[in-house]
């Protein structure tokens, strides 16, 4: 079975632009979480979706939004990009949203904002 896939792998955007990142979970996984990892730091939780409903939101501004589709894939949208949004964006899928279930991470999307 394929693991979690993310697209694109790398992305360069200009300040003020908008970006959409995509994630396909492992087949059968209905929970998708998004994390932001700034260089030299650990990942920080952005969103979790389960069965197409938002289950949790981290401490990120409203410029960040996400959604989950009927096939359980997910998109993360970031509006009005800032230089500080440059980071590795990680998607993780799991069978269940409860944290006791193992989360499987994708390879990430490296976003650079210039």
């Amino acid at each position, binding site marked *: 079975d394929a693991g979690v896939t993310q697209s694109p792998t790398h992305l360069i955007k200009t300040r003020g632009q908008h970006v959409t990142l995509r994630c396909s979970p492992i087949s059968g996984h209905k929970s998708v979480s998004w994390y932001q990892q700034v260089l030299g730091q650990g990942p920080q*939780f952005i969103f979790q979706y389960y069965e197409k409903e938002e289950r949790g939101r981290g401490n990120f501004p409203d410029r960040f939004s996400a959604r989950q589709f009927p096939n359980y894939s997910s998109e993360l949208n970031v509006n009005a990009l800032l230089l500080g949004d440059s980071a590795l964006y990680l998607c993780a899928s799991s069978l269940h949203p409860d944290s006791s279930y*193992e989360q499987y*991470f994708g390879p990430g999307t490296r976003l650079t904002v210039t």
Partner: protein
Amino acid sequence: SQQGEEDPQALSIQEGENATMNCSYKTSINNLQWYRQNSGRGLVHLILIRSNEREKHSGRLRVTLDTSKKSSSLLITASRAADTASYFCATDGLSGGSNYKLTFGKGTLLTVNP
């Protein structure tokens, strides 16, 4: 904000030696997990230890958990050059029912020299 703090920030050892990394956290947890990350790519789940467990083994990995001290340690025995990576601890949170998100520390960069 980061819940867990790994110690040391960086560790350099020779192949065959053991590596010990520590993690401290602040709030009560349901479980604690350790992840590995190679060169800024996706995270790989290593082991999960529940709050009612004190020690867990998986291959060359040994994890301990002391909930009274709010700390955990990860021991990698007989290290190999392929173990070179960043290691993160991640906790969920009992408070506020936020058992859906993981809070990561800043990580320990382990270098295993051949």
